[in-house]
């Protein structure tokens, strides 16, 4: 699905991403973990075209997509969400969602004046889809609310909803669960799993909540200091000495030892 080869990003002398090579298998939910400043979000930015890489390549289904602008990647089915939820604050939730599908009839300037019936027919379909998405995410009571007034967690749901408005192939989720309460987190987790199963979305998600990762992700990739540290199932990662040292800390290891000894 996605193949990253020798990707580097240098900010001056600082190597934020330092030679990352990894693969994301189609149909998987890949977790990306690592300490703060490990280069996870920068890696997302490089893959999603928000930043140009210093060197290296990104392939999607065998095609070189390195450095393509984000809107081109969007039309290829590569979507992402932001760590700090973004929204069009002055528009309603529904308008936010209806804006998403690209290449709409109404985007052509002549159609605005002469093709109004065609636009209306198309928008009817998009509106229905937006309503479905809002129902799926249990935010349908907020449909006319200004997006800027939503709570942090609701904005995260809106971010997820945005990716559901089109048939995405792969979605990069940047800390979709951060700052979200437990119930909402379960809703988001369920939504991700359903999308993965029913609509065969591939996901790659940055997350710090190890329980959340453990429930959803296989495989898990751990990054530190711009490099891939380890890759494997959640159990393998948790038991990996490098990962424990760089990220999880010995506290977890001790706890795990205690748990295993008590069993």
């Amino acid at each position, binding site marked *: 699905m996605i193949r990253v080869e020798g990707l580097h990003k240098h900010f001056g002398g600082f190597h934020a991403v330092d030679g990352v090579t990894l693969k994301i298998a189609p149909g998987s939910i890949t977790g990306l973990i690592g300490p703060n400043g490990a280069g996870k979000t920068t890696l997302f930015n490089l893959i999603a075209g928000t930043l140009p890489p210093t060197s290296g390549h990104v392939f999607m289904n065998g095609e070189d997509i390195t450095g393509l602008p984000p809107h081109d990647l969007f039309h290829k089915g590569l979507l992402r969400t932001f760590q700090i939820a973004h929204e069009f604050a002055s*528009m309603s939730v529904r308008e936010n969602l209806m*804006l*998403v599908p690209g290449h709409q009839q109404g985007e052509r300037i002549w159609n*605005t004046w002469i093709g109004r019936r065609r636009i209306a027919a198309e928008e009817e379909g998009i509106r229905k889809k937006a309503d479905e998405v809002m129902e799926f995410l249990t935010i349908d009571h907020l449909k006319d609310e200004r997006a800027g007034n939503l709570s942090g967690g609701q904005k995260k749901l809106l971010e997820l909803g945005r990716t559901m408005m089109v048939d995405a192939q792969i979605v990069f989720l940047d800390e979709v669960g951060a700052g979200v309460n437990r119930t909402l987190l379960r809703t988001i987790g369920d939504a991700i799993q359903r999308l993965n199963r029913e609509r065969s979305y591939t996901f790659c998600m940055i997350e710090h909540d190890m329980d959340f990762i453990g429930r959803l992700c296989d495989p898990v990739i751990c990054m530190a200091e711009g490099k891939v540290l380890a890759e494997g199932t959640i159990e393998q990662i948790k038991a990996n000495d490098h990962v424990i040292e760089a990220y999880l800390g010995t506290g977890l290891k001790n706890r795990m030892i205690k748990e295993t000894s008590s069993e």
Partner: protein
Amino acid sequence: MSVADRTPPWTSSGTCRIGFRLSRLEDGLDFLNAFVAFANFVMLPAVAYGSQLALGALGVTMIYGILRFSNFAHGDTMAFGAMATILGTWWLQAMGVSLDPFPTALLALPAGIAATAVFVLITDRLVYRFYREQKSAPVILVIVSMGVMFVTNGLVRFVIGVDEQRFADGARFIITAREFKELTGLKEGLAIKSTAMLTVVVAIIVVAILFWFLNRTRTGKSMRAFSDNEDLALLSGINPERVVMFTWIMVAALATVAGVLYGLDKSFKPFNYFQLLLPIFASAIVGGLGNPIGAIAGGFVIAFSEVTITYAFKKVAGYLIPAWEPQGLVQLLSTDYKFAVSFGILIVVLLFRPTGLFRGKAL
């Protein structure tokens, strides 16, 4: 209680009552005369000028909101649009086409808009796009736009000359001062210039279309989305080059309409448009950069302040306070210094409310 008890004591004498009423009537007429003079020399010109500034400021504010820089070339884009329309008008007049009582320029306006749209799109392709791809800082784009300003300025002068050009035809007045006096019997006349009326009507139509476009159409919404959050707009699949193109086309239309209306109402002289840049920017900033409603409000605030402060109130004062015979003109500021008004308001707004009256983007 009897009726007599209820009448106030000061009306008990009949003569006194009549005298009181007569003086009230004369006071009323004086007040009306003062109002008509004020309307004729301050309100009407300010409304027309305000509409022109508002249209200009809308263009500036759209460039700022969507392309994220202050376009110094806007005044000269207006001059270019007016020039293109004037050339079209002259051609139509030579062909014997007329739209009497409306000015022929209205017929030439669509062609002028098209020419200006082509011109700004070429400038964008040749100049701005390079800096956009470099992701240059806004301040670099501002300096670049100053370069574009000088080139456009030179081009307009080269094509049409530096002199004043008159191209207004059709009826000059809807109602002249004399007709108004005969009609009402007042001492003061109220002249309504047809160009002023036209300015206001066209401005209202243009603004209505613009707001409908921005709020109700998909293209308008993607433009607002782009202005709101560029990163997110890109990741929602909105094509930035297309948004930029639409923005330029709409800005060209706004600039041309504003330029032509200003030229019709006053007269066309390339240098005047360069000078208009200051009040236009002041309007956009006072209203809040990036906010279309603010741009319109700002245009009227600046226009009313400028006209009111530079108007000689001697006549109006003479009606209101007959006993006072002022020696001067009762003028706060000579019209030579009218640009100082924009500056003054600009400074006050930037000091006390940097985001403008309608909370645009902070400077």
